[in-house]
């Protein structure tokens, strides 16, 4: 039985619309108008026991709403949700004994009383036996280093200290599933690392299933075997982080430094016939983008003898860049498996064209064309959600830099 099972889950909110002008305000008094906002659109996924799953997406993508439905706080508008064998909203009081929840932006501890007193109260609320409580508290105190915090009132703790206490509070009753809503928000790198290590240990030793939302992709890289990406209430990606990187990052960049000035036009001539792309920063350095399907060796054999290479470095596209590219593409569907080559829609073909122009080395116009292609791709995605353009994530950063460079030149 999976720990979390979600099928065609949907949540809509009814939000009042304020009319303009005095007349509108008066009308509002007697006859409110509402619009429906769809926060989560018929999503489905299942998470097996013992998995750590990252749930990412832009602000307002519907992450928190999903978590709140899974935790029994919100009642779904439609669809089926089952967590630890319960329907969260229906069996709330029994169900919540099996889960732990941490909200990065809200405290669950009682503000006025000492941390230990909050813990004792939670012990009674969750009906944990005194012996279990002691054992659990000792363990958590040790791993989260709470020792000297326990007797302080919550309002006197720093954010990092509080967050460690929040984690302990959510785990006192030894839940089998842990929901974390932006657990590392606003924390310094030391505490972030500490919390990540703790969560890994928790998952390893107790087999706790963890679902976390975050904007910090390092959380995901450090913890998650699986990522679910949400955009505008829909799942746009569900799979491993490696796969995400592979699918979206379609190449790598090689950075060269030369010991003597090199003519930019000469560089393009050297790689004639290969689908690679040069960006000359100045005469003594250059960047070369190589698509994944081209062997680096093939490119280098052409270059090594011909250029006065002083230094060379490889750059894989970072997760941050990939995710940013996906967010910006606004594409509502999972990217096509292939590269830009096997374009399935005219828009994608346009993007592909832009790319080939790039290879010929006319930077200024390329930047514009590529931008247009992206714009129309987005428009197409909005009109018809089905076959959206495969937006090339790996390309994003070089393209940006090129644009600035073009401006400098102009």
């Amino acid at each position, binding site marked *: 039985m999976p720990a979390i099972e979600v099928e065609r889950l949907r949540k809509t909110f009814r939000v009042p619309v304020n009319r303009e002008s005095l007349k509108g305000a008066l009308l509002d008094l007697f006859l409110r108008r509402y619009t429906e906002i769809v926060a989560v659109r018929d999503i489905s996924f299942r998470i097996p026991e013992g998995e750590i799953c990252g749930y990412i997406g832009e602000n307002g993508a519907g992450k*928190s709403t999903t978590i709140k439905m899974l935790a029994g706080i919100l009642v779904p508008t439609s669809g089926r949700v089952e967590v630890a064998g319960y329907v969260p909203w229906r069996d709330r*009081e029994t169900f919540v004994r099996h889960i732990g929840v941490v909200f990065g932006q809200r405290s669950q501890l009682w503000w006025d*009383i000492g941390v230990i007193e909050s813990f004792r109260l939670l012990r009674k609320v969750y009906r944990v036996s005194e012996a279990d409580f002691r054992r659990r508290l000792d363990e958590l105190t040790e791993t989260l280093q709470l020792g000297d915090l326990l007797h302080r009132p919550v309002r006197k703790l720093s954010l990092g200290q509080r967050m460690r206490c929040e984690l302990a509070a959510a785990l006192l009753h030894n839940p089998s599933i842990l929901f974390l809503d932006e657990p590392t928000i606003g924390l310094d790198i030391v505490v972030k690392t500490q919390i990540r290590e703790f969560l890994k240990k928790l998952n390893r030793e107790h087999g706790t299933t963890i679902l976390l939302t975050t904007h910090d992709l390092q959380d995901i890289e450090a913890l998650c075997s699986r990522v679910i990406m949400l955009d505008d209430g829909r799942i746009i990606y569900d799979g491993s982080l490696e796969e995400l990187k592979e699918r979206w990052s379609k190449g790598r960049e090689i950075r060269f430094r030369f010991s003597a000035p090199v003519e930019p036009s000469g560089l393009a001539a050297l790689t004639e016939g290969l689908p690679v792309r040069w960006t000359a920063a100045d005469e003594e350095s250059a960047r070369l983008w190589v698509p994944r399907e081209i062997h680096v060796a093939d490119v280098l054999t052409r270059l090594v003898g011909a250029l006065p290479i002083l230094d060379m470095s490889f750059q894989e596209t970072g997760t941050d860049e990939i995710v940013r590219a996906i967010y910006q593409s606004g594409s509502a569907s999972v990217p096509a498996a292939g590269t830009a080559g096997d374009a399935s829609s005219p828009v994608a073909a346009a993007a592909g064209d832009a790319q080939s122009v790039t290879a010929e080395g006319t930077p200024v116009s390329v930047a514009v064309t590529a931008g247009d292609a992206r714009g129309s791709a987005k428009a197409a995605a909005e009109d018809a959600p089905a076959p959206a353009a495969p937006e090339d994530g790996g390309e994003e950063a070089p393209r940006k830099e090129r644009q600035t460079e073009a401006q400098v030149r102009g």
Partner: protein
Amino acid sequence: MASAYLEFIRIRFLTMLAYRVNYYSGIVVYALNIGVYYFLWKAIYGDASQLGGFSAAQITTYVAVSWMARSFYFNNLDREIANEIRDGSVAVQMVRPYSYLLVKLMQGFGEGLFRLLMFMLPGLVVVMLLFPLSLPAEPWRWLVFFLMIWFSFLINSQINLLTGMCAFFLENNDGVMRFKRVLVDLLSGVVLPISFFPGWARTVLEWLPFQAIAYLPGSVFTGTLNGPEIGYAIGVQAVWSVALILPILLMWRVARRRMFVQGG
């Protein structure tokens, strides 16, 4: 689980104790209120020996006792609930294995208990030294009174739960809460005993829950209600405290479905 709810009473009691200044100023405010109403009623009575079924001595006692009772049944549950809904912390309450409304009720009770022991009893001693009060001699009347103010607390808190939950449906329920507060103070009989209202208003008020909050226990305590009337008064309170459960549960059910967590 019961021990968890008791724990909420205890913790609220301790938290109240932590805010000592509130405590002292509270006693002064209550004594002032009683003093003002004492002189007001003295002026109203003048030479009259009986008005609205109360003698001059009885009305003084009524005023003192109903303010004392108010210290016990009064709470700000509506405001607390509205604030938690508005700032979104109600979400945190929903991931706990308890009934949110019952926890609120317990916190209100802890607050009431604090005021009963720390305001009402010492306050009563102070007031007795300042004003001539005629307290009932029969011990059972005291017992009945304590039973009745327990119902007062229950009914008043239930009304507070209802007004607080309005925040689920309204963007701002401040108006509703203010309206409720005026309504309760005016129609419960703290300021003016129900028997002073004109006949038609009395008939209306007898069908509303407010009189059960202050007027009924005050009247029993001062001895204007006697014999079977006392049983009837307790019955009215009991019926209201049961009857109010239904709208609360209904409202909660609807609220759960429409719950909207503010701030993400």
